[in-house]
């Protein structure tokens, strides 16, 4: 179980300009749809973009506080 604010704060610690939206798919706080928009993704493959987000959520994922994470990353238009 993790609060959306914790997820947003964790991502912004490593990607400061990230605009993050978190949707709780299950209502139990462990199946999340997370959208991250950041200029830090410019020029990076999708894999690298997602790896950046995953590494900022390392502890939440390892502890299974987040059980399932659907990610969507993009650069600002």
């Amino acid at each position: 179980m993790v609060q959306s604010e914790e997820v947003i704060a964790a991502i912004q610690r490593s990607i400061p300009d990230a605009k993050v939206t978190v949707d709780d798919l299950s209502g139990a706080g462990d199946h999340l749809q997370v959208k991250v928009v950041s200029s830090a993704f410019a020029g990076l493959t999708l894999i690298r973009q997602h790896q950046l987000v995953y590494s900022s959520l390392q502890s939440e994922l390892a502890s299974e506080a987040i059980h399932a994470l659907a990610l969507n990353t993009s650069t600002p238009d």
Partner: protein
Amino acid sequence: MDPNTLSRIETLINSSPIIVFMKGDKLMPQCGFSNNVVQILNALGISFQTFDVLSDMEIREGIKEYSNWPTIPQVYLKGEFIGGSDILIQMYNSGELKEKLDIALAS
């Protein structure tokens, strides 16, 4: 990761042009995310191999370390990790996946 697991992973990855490390198998995916990948590849009419990580804990954890990717499923194209469920969906929707597969499988 112990060398035996690493060599088993490399053998698996190179055993087929496309291999999906997933939970369950093509006929019985055991997880929605794994099922997404199976449906996408089926929709593109692409033949692919699968490996059920639920049957082998060493491979299940080893593959995450190998690709530096914390989740299952994981899709490999000609030995290269190309993504999990989200990325396959994003690439499928943009048409990039079909293009990437056509190019790789044609060569």
